[in-house]
């Protein structure tokens, strides 16, 4: 069964994915994904490993372009434009739709330079303005109080959780519309994870966030909507073909309490995955 979501007239969608298919060379990795992403809400992608949830998130800000063989069909509508339409510059897409990666990846530069990197790319040169942006962004990522006295310290000298929050600060410094998070807490300890979740609910409230997670509790705690992806298999001429598909998308509470699909139920109750 392929899930077809309903697009409500009253809802304000920041992004809509329509029949998105992702191919790596000849390999059809993700089939027919349609997801409306509501503005100002947190949408979580869950599912077993290899179900294509990270792939889908990367298509949203065209990070998949960096993979040579990757190809995307379908539409991702953002402010009335198809992100995969002609004449769309991925650089602009990425500036509007920021991304936080699975492993904290601060630049080997100072904390200040890490946060100022994005604004500088866009041509902000004034020192005072940059300082203002850095402070606001670090506050936004709940890191300011911890690092305000050593902004010149290397970003790599921070702990893992701080590094990840630095990456979040770096992302919000360019004031994106949407923040994509690809398992942002998977490399962190439980306390750091908790900080990130708290951050998403409090400091980042109001941002449209798409978060990929392995952790169902995290999706349950942090998100407004949850999309469940699963792996489909098929025997074709003796070879097993696998691909990912969206099984269900519901408001988080509903998905975890009364899942519409049997598969979702099996997954959230821990029968597989």
């Amino acid at each position: 069964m392929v899930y077809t979501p309903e697009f409500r007239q009253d809802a304000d969608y920041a992004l809509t994915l329509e029949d998105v298919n992702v191919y790596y060379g000849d390999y059809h990795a993700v089939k027919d994904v349609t997801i409306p992403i509501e503005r100002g809400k947190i949408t979580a992608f869950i599912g077993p490993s290899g179900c294509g949830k990270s792939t889908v998130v990367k298509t949203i800000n065209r990070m998949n372009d960096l993979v040579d063989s990757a190809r995307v069909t379908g539409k991702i509508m953002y402010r009335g434009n198809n992100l995969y339409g002609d004449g769309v510059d991925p650089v602009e897409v990425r500036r509007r739709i920021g991304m936080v990666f699975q492993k904290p990846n601060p630049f080997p530069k100072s904390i200040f330079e890490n946060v100022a990197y994005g604004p500088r790319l866009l041509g902000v040169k004034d020192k005072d303005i940059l300082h203002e942006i850095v402070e606001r962004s670090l506050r936004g990522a709940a890191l300011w109080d911890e690092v305000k006295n050593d902004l010149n310290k290397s970003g790599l000298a921070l702990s893992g959780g701080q590094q990840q929050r630095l990456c979040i600060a770096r992302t919000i410094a360019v004031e994106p519309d949407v923040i994509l998070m690809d398992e942002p807490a998977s490399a962190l300890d439980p306390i750091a994870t908790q900080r990130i979740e708290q951050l998403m609910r409090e400091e980042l409230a109001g941002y449209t966030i798409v978060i990929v997670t392995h952790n169902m509790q995290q999706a349950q705690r942090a998100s407004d909507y949850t999309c469940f992806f699963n792996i489909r298999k098929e025997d074709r001429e003796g070879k097993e073909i696998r691909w990912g598909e969206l099984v269900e998308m519901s408001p988080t509470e509903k998905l975890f309490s009364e899942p519409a699909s049997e598969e979702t139920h099996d997954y959230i109750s821990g029968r597989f995955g």
Partner: protein
Amino acid sequence: MNKKQKPADNTYMPDEATFKSRLQSRHLWGNVWRTFFILSIVVAILALIVLFTNVINSAFGTIATTFEIEPETLAGEGRTLSDLTEEELVAILVEREPNRLPVVVRNNFNNVPDEEFTESTLAQVAPNGSYPDGFENATINEIRDGENTAEVLGEFLQLNLPKGNIINIVEEDIVALQVLDAWSLWDAITNFEPTAAEQERLDELPVEIEALETQLADVETQIADKEADIQTLRDESATDNADAIRSTNAEISELQEQSSDLLSQIDDLNDELTLLISSNITTSVERDFGDAENPVEIVRYHSWLSTEFLQTPMSSVPAQAGIRTALYGSIIMMVIVILVSLPVGVAAAIYLEEYARDNVLSRFPLVNINKIIETNVRNLAGVPSIIYGMLGLAIFVRMLAPFTSGVVFGINVNPPPTNRIVNLMEELTNLELDLELDENYNITAYTGPEWLSEDDAQRVVTLFRRYGTPSVTNRGNVPLERIESDIANILGIRIRNQVPANADELDYSRVASGFVELSTLPAGMTIEQFESLGQQLRRVSGFTLSGRTVLSAALTLSLLILPVIIINAQEALRAVPNALREASYGLGATKWQTIWKTILPAAVPGIMTGTILAVSRAVGETAPLIVVGASTFLLTDPNGPFSQFTALPIQVYQWTARPQGQFQFIAAAAIIVLLTMVLVLNAVAIIIRSRFDNRY
């Protein structure tokens, strides 16, 4: 599939005893390998130690010197020559060797060929130099014929030569410091003086030898006596005294045996004495130079490597030879190599690593052209350096000579004086040619043969001027064909490469070889005149277009290390984690911004280390430099990319090839300098690497 029956105790793992015994052999193998690795290290370290001790043993040691005039007599009490000012040094030269100064000038400036030296003006001898007042345009002959020859030339030397050179001249020509013999450090430590036992033996031996010689003389007198006796006996009556003669003969042969025995003993002792004397420095100096005219001084610890060695230019006397010109050559070359190969290499690496993935070449089916390019860059890194030398010779020295010689930029162009051009023009035509030139080489008055109009004559003059940069070592690099074809162009003569149909009717070799078609010569011009024109032109020419410059050598070395730099830079770029690229792209950076702001800074340490190691390899390269024409004997410092040059490895190569032993010692000293340069470069590489380590 046939599965083995699972054993009764339900495990595939070996039992306790087997495990124990196998464990022992596993550890044993580990230890065997470890020993092998340690041995490898020991071999490597031993090789290094041998290398270093060898070099140090040669670079330091003992010398025995003598001189004609003590430097202290010249310099004054308690001072050395280097304490003197240039004026004082020149004054010494002028006072003591006034007649040698022209030769000194000739030897120290090689801008004009030796045979033209006496007709050259000071301005030609040292272009862009400073000159004694009013003598800028005086020729050497004129100065020699005038008064104060020595003072003028002395002042000229003082104005145009560095102090190190002048000290060298004083030492060579006046002090005439001479190193009589030299020994290595090992000899200086172990065999300087005879030990007490040796000394005792040295004292005894002559006494013993003398005693034996007295004995020998004694025996020989006896032999002579006996022979006289025999003669007397024979004279009396050979038959009656037969017995007596026989017995005396027996005595004689006994004595002769004794004498030869004594002789061999004396020989042995003499051998021993010679060996003892030769194996000790003080005694052998005493023997070899003891009765020399000038005092002999033994310097027990002499370092061939000294500040003077670094500051003085080449010399044919090992003790006065230095490496300044070579050092400058190497340093200038190093700078150019870095300036050329670093940007080009890094740019190529960035292209291959970051852009080549999605260029047109990558879309070819079946073959990945980018991969082929990369593989070939790697192969180039392994090409023997001599082959790069050949490449440099063909491309930089010959093909790009106008650029590498600096002529295109107006450097190294030193036109012959106008009067010389006028003479040549008259000489070559053998005709009534009246030609006057002003100082800008423009014809002011002209009457000439029919075939040479004034315009053409002006163009020939220009040609002379362009080709004429006299220089000793670079003579004759412009091929005659080229000069002739230039003249032919001016005169509208057709030059062709086929043998003309009527070749056998023509006498002239150049014509017979089909070079010139006779019928196309201008009316009135003979083929001899045409050839003479070419020959004359060749006589003044061939200097300008010499690409044997520092620039050519540096470009060749840059080519040589370019593949290494590309490979290193590629590795460094590849080592930058993809996470950083993603992070940058994720913030909306363009490809160029990502490369410039993130990837390059992160890769800089790796790129720098790779580059420095490659440059340190280039600094030590010899083969390509020989091929592209490094000078082996050069007194003038290179003063820019378009100078003649020599380099440290060339000097070392030169010196080690010389038969005189002392050159081996200065070669070792030069090796130490070269090694130090390389080690410093490598140290910088290590510092950069450790400094920027753990940046990501």
